[in-house]
């Protein structure tokens, strides 16, 4: 009995352990390689012009988006997207601070704002195209009009939930209004605000693409629909990849910013849990 037990314990110890970094890398790349491999094999075995090989898509990616189109389609799209996001976030936080700190203003405006948030943002695209035409400004405004509400309403909510002890302490120390906002209201509302910004980012990206697909003659969204109707499938797939990459990069940037802005908050939560 005791012999068999010893053997039992000895077995895992004798097996050479795979270093952590190898299993770690494997975890990250195994499934993507499997998927891309399956794609390549099916493209080689059963060629189908709707599902071109990875090589063709890669070639189309470079040719399509890094030629003159980079300045005609890609840069303007990204410019409108970032302008829309920045304006939406700034306006949302500023207005949210104001509305959140004045109680009667909050009661007055919240129902109207809630309704605006409820309207599915894509419905705004034809609306604003009617009122403003198909200019760059109209497209930026579409993004702002759809993406501002999560930031705005989350800021209102975050400002409302500021710890009353902190607020009263600040008042007792006679901190000026601006100081109070910068060193108390904004930090304590920032977890809520960032949650709103995250929602706004995905809405902004959706609206950028939709506004280009419906009321436009340029932009990434416009181009991939044109490729689809012209049966240029490798180019179409490369556009899908480009939009996917923009989404991924946006998510990474957001995570970096969030870690900087909310580092203290996650530290606090971790300490509470421990």
């Amino acid at each position, binding site marked *: 009995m005791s012999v068999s037990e010893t053997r039992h314990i000895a077995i895992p110890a004798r097996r050479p352990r795979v270093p952590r970094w190898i299993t770690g890398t494997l975890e990250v790349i195994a499934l993507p390689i499997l998927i891309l491999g399956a794609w390549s094999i099916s493209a080689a075995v059963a060629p189908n012009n709707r599902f071109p090989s990875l090589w063709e898509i890669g070639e189309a990616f470079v040719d399509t988006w890094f030629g003159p189109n980079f300045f005609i389609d890609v840069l303007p799209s990204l410019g409108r997207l970032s302008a829309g996001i920045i304006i939406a976030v700034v306006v949302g936080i500023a207005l949210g601070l104001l509305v959140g700190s004045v109680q009667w203003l909050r009661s007055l405006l919240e129902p109207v704002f809630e309704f605006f948030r409820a309207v599915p943002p894509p419905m705004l695209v034809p609306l604003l195209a009617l009122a403003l035409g198909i200019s760059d400004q109209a497209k930026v405004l579409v993004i702002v009009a759809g993406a501002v509400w999560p930031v705005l309403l989350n800021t209102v909510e975050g400002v409302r939930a500021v710890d009353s002890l902190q607020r009263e302490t600040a008042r007792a120390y006679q901190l000026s209004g601006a100081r109070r906002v910068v060193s108390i209201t904004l930090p304590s509302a920032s977890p809520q605000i960032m949650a709103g910004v995250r929602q706004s980012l995905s809405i902004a990206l959706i609206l950028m693409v939709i506004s280009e697909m419906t009321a436009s003659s340029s932009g990434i969204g416009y181009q991939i629909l044109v490729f689809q109707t012209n049966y240029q499938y490798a180019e179409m797939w490369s556009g899908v990849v480009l939009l996917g990459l923009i989404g991924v990069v946006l*998510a990474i940037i957001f995570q970096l910013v969030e870690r900087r802005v909310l580092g203290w908050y996650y530290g606090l939560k971790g300490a509470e849990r421990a």
Partner: protein
Amino acid sequence: MRSGSGMLSRVLLGIAGVLGFLLIWQLAAAVGWINAKYVPPPTEVFASLGSQLLDLQYWRAIGNTLTTWSIGLGISIALAVVLGTVIGLVPFLRRYTRSTIEFLRPIPSVAIIPIAIMSFGPNREASLVIVVFATFWQVFIQVLYGVADVDPVARDTQRSFGIGPFQRLPHLVLPTALPYLITGIRLGATVALILTVTGELIIGVPGIGRLLTQRATAGDYAGVYAMVITAGALALIINLIIRVIERRALAWHQSVRGEVVL
């Protein structure tokens, strides 16, 4: 008593806010701050909405939108629950799928519209592809977190009582994951409606989005705004219904119980 009068004044202020907004809109159109041709005053918009309420085409559009929405949401929930439970409970799968999930999730679902049209033609199926792609992630991530959130003490207690893995699913995992799942469904319902409308606007699937486009092409701008109000109202009603379901399904749960006691 005090909180009662506070509540009353809040509701009154809210109503005042809505009326004030409509009044400013009306004035802006009357005075000419905004082009009344493209942005008709609320009196015209609500008149148009009133006449549409008697129109069968309007209700059929809402029915079509709700059909696409509910099928898309249903498929997403089913997929998310099955995959989320399996992947969430098996550590090996969780580790090996993580990178792929993190990469696929931020891809905007509107990006795959051309693929959807290519595969299914401009039909409801194509619309469902983008609805499911967007909605699935909302529910899936919540299920994944929920399944992983099982209280270690409860798990060890069950294990020491000799309760097998198959009984663990209904008695331990389900109660833990249910609040997460319902949160996911609430988020997913909103996203599904956004993508349903997107499919109607861009692919041309029947529904309120396409009705809006038709009104716009016909130059019926009051009708366009009536459709926007319809869409907002629809989203609010859906949200309200899910909140009620949330309360019912989680009546036993701390988050809901706490609110009731207070």
